C-alpha cells in the first residue's frame, strides 16, 4: 500500500506538507518565536518591521510577529476543518445511506428535498448567510460551515448506496433475513469508503478556503485571534508598503490547501489502481 503510494512523488509531498502542518498546529505554543503575539499584544516600537532575522516574516502594524500568528492561524484552520468534517461527514453519510437504501420511499424523498434546499445556492453564499445570522465568531463560523457541508456527502453516498442496494447480493441477504441496518453498515458502507475518504481529504483544504473567506469578509473568527483570512484582509489595507502582512498568510493558505489536495489525489489514485 505504502509502496504504491510512494511511487507518486506528488502524493508524498502532499503527505509531508499535511503532516508538518498538523505537527506545527499541535506544538504551536512551543515552536513559534513569540507565542504571546497570537493574541491582543502590542509593541509599537517594533511595528511594521520588514522580514528580518528577528521577525522572519516581518511584523504587523501593532508590532506582532507575522510568523507566530500564521502558525496559530494554521492551528485554528486545521481545528476548524477537523471539527466541521467530524460532524458533517458522519451525518451526511448516514443520511445518504438511508435515502439510498429506502429508495422511492417517503424517507428518500424527504432527505433528497432537504439536501436540494441546501444545494440550491452556491456553498460559500449559504455559509456567509448563516454565519451572518448568528453572531460572527469562530464557533458560529464552524457551525455555519457544518450546516452547509453535510448535504454534499449525502449526495455523494446516495448514488453509491442506491446502486449497490439494487445488486443481487444485497437482495439475497435481505431475503435470508439480515436486518437492514446490518446491511447498511456492513455491506453498503464499505463500498463507499474510497470516494468518501478521497472527498474528506480534499475537503480539508476546501473548508480552509471557505473558512478563510468568511474570515476575510469579517464573518469568521474575530480579531485579535489570528485567522489567516483576517490577516490577509488586514494586510491588504497596508499594501503595497507592508506587503509581508498579506503575502505570507496568503501563501500559508495556498500551501496547506495544496498539501491536502495532493494527498487527496494520491488517495484517489491509490484506490483507482486497486480497482484495476
Amino acid at each position: 500500500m505504502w509502496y504504491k503510494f510512494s511511487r507518486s512523488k506528488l502524493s508524498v509531498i502532499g503527505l509531508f506538507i499535511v503532516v508538518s502542518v498538523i505537527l506545527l498546529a499541535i506544538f504551536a505554543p512551543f515552536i513559534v518565536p513569540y507565542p504571546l503575539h497570537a493574541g491582543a499584544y502590542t509593541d509599537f516600537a517594533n511595528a511594521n518591521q520588514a522580514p528580518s532575522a528577528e521577525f522572519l516574516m516581518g511584523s504587523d502594524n501593532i508590532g506582532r510577529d507575522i510568523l507566530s500568528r500564521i502558525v496559530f492561524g494554521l492551528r485554528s484552520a486545521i481545528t476548524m476543518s477537523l471539527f466541521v468534517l467530524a460532524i458533517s461527514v458522519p451525518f451526511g453519510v448516514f443520511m445518504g445511506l438511508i435515502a439510498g437504501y429506502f429508495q422511492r420511499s417517503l424517507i428518500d424523498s424527504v432527505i433528497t428535498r432537504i439536501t436540494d434546499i441546501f444545494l440550491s445556492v452556491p456553498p460559500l453564499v449559504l455559509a456567509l448567510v448563516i454565519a451572518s445570522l448568528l453572531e460572527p465568531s469562530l464557533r458560529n463560523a464552524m457551525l455555519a460551515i457544518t450546516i452547509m457541508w453535510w448535504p454534499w456527502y449525502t449526495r455523494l453516498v446516495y448514488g453509491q448506496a442506491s446502486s449497490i442496494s439494487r445488486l443481487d447480493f444485497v437482495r439475497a441477504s435481505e431475503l435470508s433475513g439480515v436486518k437492514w441496518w446490518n446491511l447498511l453498515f456492513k455491506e453498503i458502507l464499505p463500498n463507499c469508503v474510497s470516494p468518501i475518504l478521497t472527498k474528506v481529504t480534499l475537503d480539508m483544504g476546501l473548508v480552509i478556503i471557505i473558512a478563510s473567506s468568511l474570515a476575510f469578509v469579517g464573518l469568521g473568527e474575530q480579531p485579535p485571534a489570528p485567522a489567516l483570512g483576517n490577516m490577509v484582509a488586514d494586510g491588504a489595507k497596508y499594501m503595497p508598503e507592508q506587503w509581508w502582512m498579506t503575502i505570507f498568510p496568503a501563501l500559508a493558505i495556498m500551501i496547506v490547501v495544496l498539501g491536502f489536495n495532493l494527498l487527496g489525489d494520491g488517495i484517489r489514485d491509490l484506490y483507482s489502481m486497486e480497482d484495476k
Partner: protein
Amino acid sequence: MKRTLWSVAALIGLSILIFSLSRMLPGDPARMALGPRAPEYVVEELRVEMRLDQPLHIQYGYWASGVVRGDFGRSLMTRRAVSQDIRAYLPATIELVIFAATVQVIFGIALGVLSTMYNGRWVDNIIRIVAYLGIVTPAFVFGVIFLLIFGYLWPILPAAGRLSVEPAITGMTTVDSLLKGDFSSFFRAISHFILPGTALAMNGVAQLARVTRSSMVDNLKSDYVDMAFSQGLNESKIMFKYLLRPSLIPSVSMMAMQFAILFSNAFLVELIFNWPGLSRYGVNAMLYKDFNAIIAVVLVLGIVFIIANILADTIIALLDPRIRLQAGKGA
C-alpha cells in the same frame, strides 16, 4: 422541466429556512433597525408594522406575498426598497461574472486542449502545475495579489471601481457604451474588468483546464479516435472535431457549477476591488444584519443558479445527441 420545478421548490424551502432563522434568533429586528436610542413606543410601532407581533407563518405569508409582487421589503441599511437596490447593483455583478465566465471558457478549454496536444511533455507539465496552483488558491488571495502587482507595483490597469456611463440604460457599462456607440468608453469599461474579472476567473480556468484535459486524454485512448487515425483523417481534424466535442461534455456540466461559484466568489472579489455590485451589497447587508436585503440577495443568486443549470443542460443536449434525442422521447 421537472428538475427546474424542484429547484424552485428548493428555493422556496431555502427562503423559509432563512426567514425563520432570522426571526427566531435572539435580537429584536425592530430595535436593531432603529438603534438603541429610539424611544420604546416608536420601536413598538415598527414591530407592529413589521408584523413581528404575529406568528411566524403569518409573517412569512405576508413577506412571501410581497415577494411575488416583486416587493422584498425595505432595506435597513440603505432605507430604500430592496428591489430598487437590487436593480441598481445586480447589473454590475452580472457583467463582471459574465466577463469572468468568458475568460474561463476561453482560457480553460484552450489550456486543456494545449495540455492534451503536448500530453506528457513540458508544456503539459507546466499547464498542469499552474492549474494545480489555481485550484488551491482562494479567489480573495488572487484578488489581493493582483491588486498588489497590477494596482500598486506596476499600475497598468484600473484597480478599483467601475466606469460610470451616463445615462444608464441597462446598467451594464459595456452594453450601455456600445448602445451609445461610444467606443472609447467601451474600452475603458473593459479595462476596469480585467483585474477583478481575471481574479474571479482564475479558479475556474484551472478547474476547467484540468477537467478538459483529463476527459480529452481519456478519450484519446478510445477506439473511435484510433479508428479515426486508422482512416487517415488529419490530426487537427481529429483533435478539434472528433475528440474535442465528446470531451467537452464533462467540462460543460462543470461550467454550471463554476458559474455559481463565480457568483459566490464575487462576494470577496467585489469587496477587494470596490466593485459596486450585488455581492458587495450582500456582504454589507450581512455585516449590518439587514435581513430583507440578505434574503433577497440569496434568492436572486438562487434564481441565477437555476438559470445556469438550465443553460448547461441545453448546451450538453446540443453536444450529446444521446441526451437530446432520448429526452425528446421520454419526459
